[in-house]
Each structure stands twice: as structure tokens, then as C-alpha cells.
């Protein structure tokens, strides 16, 4: 597989993880924590 394509796929995974983590923090903030 092309190295750049592989890296783009990895980036997408990183962004998804970041979105999930941020959602966790966002919910915390909503709770007032």
C-alpha cells in the first residue's frame, strides 16, 4: 500500500480518537466538572 495513503488512514484514526477524547471532556464540562 502507498506509504502516504497509509499515513492518511492513520491520520483519520488519530482524528477520530481525538474527537472521542474531546467528547469525553466536553461531557465533563457539561456536568460542571
Amino acid at each position, binding site marked *: 500500500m502507498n*506509504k*502516504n495513503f*497509509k*499515513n*492518511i488512514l*492513520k*491520520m483519520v484514526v*488519530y482524528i477520530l480518537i481525538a*474527537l472521542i477524547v*474531546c*467528547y*469525553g471532556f*466536553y*461531557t*465533563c464540562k*457539561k*456536568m*460542571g*466538572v
Partner: protein
Amino acid sequence: MKKKIDYRHFICVSITLVCLAFSVFKFKYAPLRIWESLIDIFNSFKFYLNELFGFNFAFEPTVNDFTKQPFIMPFNLPNTWEEFKVLWRAYWQLYITKTNIQAYFTAVGDFLYYFARYLIVFLPFVLVLILLFQREIPKNNDYNKDSKPLALYKRFERKVLKPIKDWLRGFFTFVSETPIYYKLWLLIWAWNFNFFAIIIEFFAYYLYFVASFDLISLYIQVLKLLMDLSAMLYFIPTIGWIVLALVIVDRVRRNIALNTLRHFEMRNRGFINSLPITTLICGTMGTGKTTMLSDMLLSLEAIFRDKAQELIFDNDMRFPNFPWINFENDIGKAYDEHKIFNLATVRSYVDDKLANFNKNPCKENLWDYDFEYYSVTFDDKLKVVELFDVLQSYAQLYFVYLSDVLVLTNYSVRTDFLYMSEDNFPLWDTDFFARSSAALDVTSRHSKILDFDALRLKRTAVKDNPLANSYDFGILGITEYGKERKNMLELKELKKKDVETNQRNDGFIDGTKMRRHSGTIDYYPFVKEIGDEQRPESVGADARDTFKIVHIRNKSDVKLAMPLFAVGELLHNFIISRFKNYYYQYRFARGDNTLFMYLLKKLASGLHNYYLGIYNLYGYSELTCETEMGTLSGDVEKHSYYLSNKKIYSKRFSTDAFSDYFAKKTMRSEFGLNDLDEYSSERATFDELKRQNSYFINELINNDDVINKK
């Protein structure tokens, strides 16, 4: 004369005073917090003694009380475990609500909207940059002439930036060479950030917990820890945390990479250990035969050193009261004085010493061992071994362990195992991956020159060769093995009875078959012979049958053992590919230097070198191998072998190992590639074909009667 004090001391003292000022004015609660933690540990200790020994000390366990200092509770967490449980349940209920998710994505959208607005501020700069790249490059041939802005910038760099950089570098060196300052700063900031209180509180809670097993109170401890850390949490700015996080992530991923490479090295060693004493690596040109051979030789040296140490330890444990240090010093001295230089001389040396002891049995003649009090025999449940036998083995193992280079090759391989000694038991650093390339020339050794006469049992190529009998242990690496030990077809002209030494009468193959007999200590052969060749059939069958053949079937692209490099790699590929295009258009058009290209090149080279550095340190490729017996029976086993860039491409060997010979050969010629004639058209003429001096063409011509008649 009065010694002048380095002015940098004043700077360091000033920094210390500033740090102390922070302690006094900003972190004034730190000492009070320490005092509280001391009270906590004192009370916990009393609680511990009461519970353990049944004392009746009057006390209040204060370790679960919150601090009375005005520290902020981070994240506004609830004060009790019960409240936290309620909140925790509510959190997950909210987490899966559709409205919350929708609100989150709206918030993400808002964030992107505002982020985009900030980006617009930078848009003109991006457009200017694009225009700069798009404009036509003016042409000139002003070779290496600096433009006016560049000349000005270079002056600024020389007069301002360079001195600042040099001063900072000098200052950091000064601080690292005067550890009192940075240790003091670390101490002050550990005090400021309540680290001392945290450590004391940890032990206070430990004493309380082992006596109470009060798990619920753990929550309070987490809160107390967070409150103590709040001094640091709210002092360091967000940008500081981001930098710190990046530094930590970088260190973690580098450590993961190093551990991965070390794991691969261990797998390689497992594979090497599974191979017999003689091995032949085969593969087509460019698959990395000699690379794999060199890699295996280096791993084998590490294996031999580790094995020697392991066996030394086993022998040490058999007679734990023997003064081994005296014995080692004696062997070491004999080694330095060249009284011992191979395993046979080691055995003879120890024999002489023991004979001397037998003649005159006293402690002094047995390296101060109290043989009358301690045992001189050891039962290992297989047999009873004598101390003298163990000493023989120990001396040989120690000799192998001490030997500086264990590899003998017909091409040069660089080794860099670090010998560390405090004049007691020496240690070897056999790590390949955490080595500084800057210290490479200082730490390097090279493999020993292999004299093939030392491997020939019957006749030698050089009469009375003094090195003829020098080999008894070591790792033999022979590249292009089949050129040295040819097959039957190639050797059919040679006869065993020939007066001259040849491949049929020199006893080399007998030597290969018997090699382990000279170098076995404690049942472990410190002997290995590895060769490489393109085809196993190129090696004579008698030799080949003794080998295990390792066929290299495939070599993977270079992979990276370091995780989380995808973003860096994408960025590098995006920038460098564009820069490269532009750079060569620019070089095509212009011969002078401009400020724009100077800065651009500086950035690009920094990025490119960082990228290459990461791949050089943590890159590896995987070889897919198949092993089979030298009889070529066809039963193959699949294996993977890992080649780490840092280990094997760090000036280890020259891929053109025999280039010096070819250089000498071509030096005799008066012509080079550029002097040769071209074909006059797409179809070679008869005359051109004849000029090839090809056997095939000559044969065609010679067999063609019509042409010959002409």
C-alpha cells in the same frame, strides 16, 4: 594572582534568587503543606504501630483530611466517593444522549468556524508564498553570488544570531558542568510544586492503608494529590503543557521504537541460535546477503559474550567462596603480557599453576583460596567436578570474554562493543541501538583479517605460515564463499596429489567439519562459520552438505519501529516533494543565492534531515528467509530476520567489499565508459557485433561457412 570568577556564576545565582523569590511570594503555602504531611505521616505511623503491635498511642489519623491550605480543587471534583459515584453514573447517562452528541458536534462546528476565521488572517501570507513559488524564476549565471538581502541577512546571522546561539550553548554546557545550580533549581521547584509533600503523603497513606485496607479513602488521596499538583497545574501556561506533552510523547515513542528494535534483535538471536555451527546465506544479488551475514556476525559476538558471562556465572556459583577476582586478575595479567593468546595456552597456563600448587599446596598458590576450609569438589547431580576442572573452564571463558574482537572475516566489519572496566570484573555494553554516531570513531573496532591458512588442516598456501595454527575459537564470516570453496566442476582440473596447495588437498573442509573441537568450553562451542553465496550449488557438495542453507526470498521496504510518525511523515512528504521540484527549477534557472531560497533551504534541510535521522535510528526491514539442509532435500522452514538501519548501516561494512581490487584493475586501463563507442543505430552492424568479443557471436561467426569464406 587573583582568579577571575566566571560571570555566568552571577547569572546562575540570579536565576536561583528568582526561583527562591517564587518560593517566598508565589508558593508560600508549600512549607505549610510539608508540615501538614509530616503530621500525617506521624499520625499514620502511630496508627500502624497500634494496629501491628497493639499499642495504644493516642492519635487522630489525619491522612484522609483535606489540606487547610488554599489550594484549588482541580476539575471541581466532588469531595466524597458517594458524590462521585452519583456524578459518574450521571456522566455516562449524559454521554450517550443524542442531544449531547448533537450539541458536541455543533460545538465542534463552532470551533472549526472560529478556527477558520483565525486562519483567514494567515491566508494573505499563504497567497504571497504561493505567488512567490509561481512567479517565473529570473535566469542568471552569477555563480554563488549572494543577493543584497541575503548578504545583509548573513551579516545579521554572523553578528547577532550566531553569537547568541554560541552563548546559549556555552551557558548550557556551563550549567551541566556545574551541577550544583541545576540540582538546586530542581530542588526549589520540587518544593514549590509540593513534590516533597506528595512523597511524604504517599508514605503516610501507605502506613495507614496497610493497617486499615480502607479502599474508599483512596479517592480522597487522589483528590489530595490533585490539589497538591494544582500549584503546578495552574502555574505552567497552556503552551508549556503542550510543549511538555509533545516532549513526553516524543520520548515515549522513541522508547517504544528502541524496545521494538531490541525485541527484533532478540528474535534474530533466537534464529541464529537455532542454526548449526556452519551456515550459508544464499540469495540473488541485492537481496542483502552480506548485510545479513554482517548482522549475524555482530549478533553472534554479543551472543558469545553473553554466553561466556553466563557460563562464568555458573562456574562462580559452583565455588562461591573462591576468590575469583584474584584468579581473573592473574588471567588478565597473563593476557596483557601475551603469555596466553589462545585457548590451548590458557589451559597450559592454568595447568602450570595447578602443578605448582600440587608441588607446594598452600593458599598463596591457589589464588588465596582456603582449600582446607572450603570444598574443592562440587556435585552438580550429574557428576562430581573438581575445582581444578572448573578453574580450567573459568580461565578459558574469561579469556573469551576478555578478547577484544571475536569476529574473523575476509572483508571488514566494524564492531563497537564497549568494554567497561573499573579494574574489577569488566562488563561489555552490547547494545546496538542507543549509540551516538558522533563517538563512532572512538569506540570502533574492526573484524580480524582472516588468514585462510589458519583454517586449513593439511597444507597451507604459504609455507611455514606463522598464523597457520592460530585459530581455535571465534566467529568466521566468509563472503562469496563459493569463490573460495568451488564446486566439483570448477575444481576438476585440480588433483589431491598436486604438489601445490589447492582446494582438494588443503584439508579446509575437514577443518570445517572438526571446527567445534578446538573451541568448545563447558560443552558450548565458541565457534561459528557463516558464509554467503548467490547459489548453494556454487559451493562444493562436501562443504555444502555440512551447512544449513538460509535462502533470502524477499526483503521488505524499510519500515519504522517508531509509532505516531504518520503526521510528521505526511508533512515531510508534502513539503519536501514540492520543495524539491521548485529547488531544481530554481537551480536550473539561477546560479546565484537569494534570501528566499536560503531560508527555504534551511527549513527544508532541517525537516528532511530530521526525517532521515528518524529512519536511520528506528527504520528496519524484514527479510523473509527459508532454511533447508545443505543436502538441498527441499524441506524448508520459513523465518523472518530483521535488519535494523541503526545496527547494520552505521558504517558496518562496505557493500563493495572488494572494490579496491577492481579499482586497481581499472587503473590499468586507459579508457573509461565515456570513451567507448556507441552503436550507430538501433540495429547493431556486423562489425559492431564482432567488436563485442562475445563467445556466442564468435561461435556463430566461426560456424558460418559463408561468412568465413568471405
